[in-house]
């Protein structure tokens, strides 16, 4: 029977399989019993520190066991964690705090105007604490607020409920045919839906999660594979590309050990896909389709006959599919076909509560319990979902999503440029790299411009190349024509 929350699964496994490893780092592990005890101890530390039930707490992702313990402890004591990326600058942290009405920050560095707790100090205090005894969260209560740039580019706080966590985890477990005692390596950031939900699916399944901080230290991957006998991995196209780049065909040595690999967060480059298929002929290789707002709604094993152009696989166990026209009116499934595709919406227990403090955006996205998308699709005779088109300007730089509009707005504050367009060029390792086209003003100085951007933006958002152009392609309204910008870049 389905439980109310991820924490309820962890607490149950702490009793039924106390010695099974729950979460591992290269040099540190916790069993389910240790993990749940630590969560209770950490909750006691947080409550003693004055953090209140229902309080919103920003938690910087450090991609280790301590981060997950604090995250879970906040949920256990009834506070609401808001996980944020480790590269988040203090100014951005303050902005997010204002957006989600959080006054407390757990991180490695202070941010202006916020009550601060050091994650490392909390870990030290946890060692001697007495475990708290709280009620486990209910299914319909809030689990966390996830920050996403989504497909519109505007930063949004997705309010997630515990029932969503469990339903999405079941989608992952069913979709991957996850076996009992699955051991999964997760190098993906645990503040994003993809990494966090893979961890949660392993907790629901009673398996083991092995944490890595990105894929650049690929030597850690091989050590984890050997030490914990990993049977699966959750990768991004960028991390797969990095494995290929830094280790050649080494992955093929683990073909018989790996039950499956899931690739998420961005489309896989065709060459990498073919290379992976040739190396892992007997391993299940999955692509998930989903969003923070409604996770893992479709799954495709691209090492199977289901793989064909545009196919995102079959809807997962807790996903309800609906088609609409451009006005939002429901279209009957039998009226949707290859010749007459319609817009996809997703419903069911996977659907978020809404965007925090943004009723307008919530109304635009949620329609009667369904999450609207801008994807045109149809279902084929076998029930596979086929995407026909996608409206998406977001740049995915090695797994980090960047809104061009946000960077352009910032760059236009520099007086040495008349205008700019932020776009991307293909890259073998990261999939794409951000670049910028600028129309210079008289006062333009490239070094000063970069210094200006460096001061204002997170480092991953900085353009890797700046091209000076005479003009930018725009509509008569002044909107940048992004496809035309891409064409320009092909010539530069």
């Amino acid at each position: 029977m389905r439980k109310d929350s991820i924490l309820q699964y962890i607490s149950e496994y702490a009793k039924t399989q106390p010695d099974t490893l729950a979460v591992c780092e290269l040099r540190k592990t916790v069993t389910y019993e240790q993990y749940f005890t630590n969560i209770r101890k950490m909750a006691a530390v947080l409550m003693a520190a004055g953090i209140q039930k229902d309080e919103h707490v920003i938690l910087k992702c450090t991609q280790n066991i301590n981060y997950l313990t604090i995250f879970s402890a906040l949920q256990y004591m009834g506070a609401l964690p808001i996980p944020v990326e480790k590269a988040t600058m203090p100014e951005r942290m303050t902005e997010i705090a204002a957006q989600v009405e959080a006054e407390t920050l757990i991180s490695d560095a202070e941010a202006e105007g916020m009550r601060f707790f050091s994650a490392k100090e909390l870990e030290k205090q946890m060692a001697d604490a007495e475990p708290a005894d709280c009620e486990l969260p209910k299914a319909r209560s809030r689990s966390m607020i996830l920050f996403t740039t989504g497909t519109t580019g505007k930063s949004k706080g997705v309010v997630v409920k515990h029932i969503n966590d469990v339903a999405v985890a079941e989608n992952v477990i069913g979709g991957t045919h996850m076996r009992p005692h699955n051991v999964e390596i997760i190098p993906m950031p645990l503040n994003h839906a993809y990494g966090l939900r893979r961890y949660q699916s392993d907790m629901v399944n009673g398996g083991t999660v092995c944490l890595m901080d990105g894929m650049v230290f690929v030597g850690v991957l091989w050590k984890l594979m050997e030490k914990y006998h990993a049977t699966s991995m959750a990768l991004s196209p960028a991390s797969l590309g990095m494995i290929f780049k830094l280790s050649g065909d080494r992955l093929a040595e683990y073909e018989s050990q790996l039950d499956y690999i899931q690739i998420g967060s961005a489309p896989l480059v065709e060459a990498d896909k073919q290379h992976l298929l040739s190396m892992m002929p007997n391993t299940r290789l999955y692509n998930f389709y989903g969003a923070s707002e409604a996770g893992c709604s479709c799954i495709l094993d691209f090492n199977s006959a289901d793989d064909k152009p545009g196919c995102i696989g079959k809807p997962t166990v807790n996903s309800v599919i609906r088609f609409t026209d451009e006005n939002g009116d429901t279209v009957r499934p039998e009226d949707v076909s290859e010749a007459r595709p319609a817009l996809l919406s997703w419903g069911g227990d996977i659907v978020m509560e809404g965007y925090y403090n943004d009723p307008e955006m919530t109304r635009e996205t949620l329609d009667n319990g369904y999450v609207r998308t801008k994807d045109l699709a149809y279902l084929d005779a076998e029930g596979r979902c086929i995407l026909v088109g996608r409206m998406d300007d977001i740049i995915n730089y090695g797994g980090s999503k960047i809104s061009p509009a946000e960077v352009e707005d910032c760059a236009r504050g520099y007086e040495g440029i008349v205008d700019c367009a932020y776009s991307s060029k293909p890259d073998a390792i990261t999939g794409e790299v951000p670049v910028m086209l600028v129309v210079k003003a008289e006062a333009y100085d490239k070094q000063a411009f970069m210094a200006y951007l460096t001061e204002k933006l997170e480092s991953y958002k900085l353009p890797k190349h700046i091209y000076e152009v005479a003009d930018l392609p725009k509509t008569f309204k002044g909107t940048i024509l992004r496809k035309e910008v891409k064409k320009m870049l092909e010539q530069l």
Partner: protein
Amino acid sequence: MNEFIEMLKRVKPGIDFEHETALVDDGLLESLDIISIISEVSEVYGVWIPSDEIIPDNFNSAEAMYELVQDLKEE
């Protein structure tokens, strides 16, 4: 060693490579910096760092990186 540190400073200016001993642990070097260093080492020293050696401990200080490259050159 001085030449090696100069190379590191070209890859990532503004870091005290002479004294920092937690370049990775303290987040001073990001993943794309590591890739740039691996490429630069390959180009300048003719040494491709094997994937088993690409672990944080080997990149936390200029000295650790330098020793790794020297060991690989001797192999």
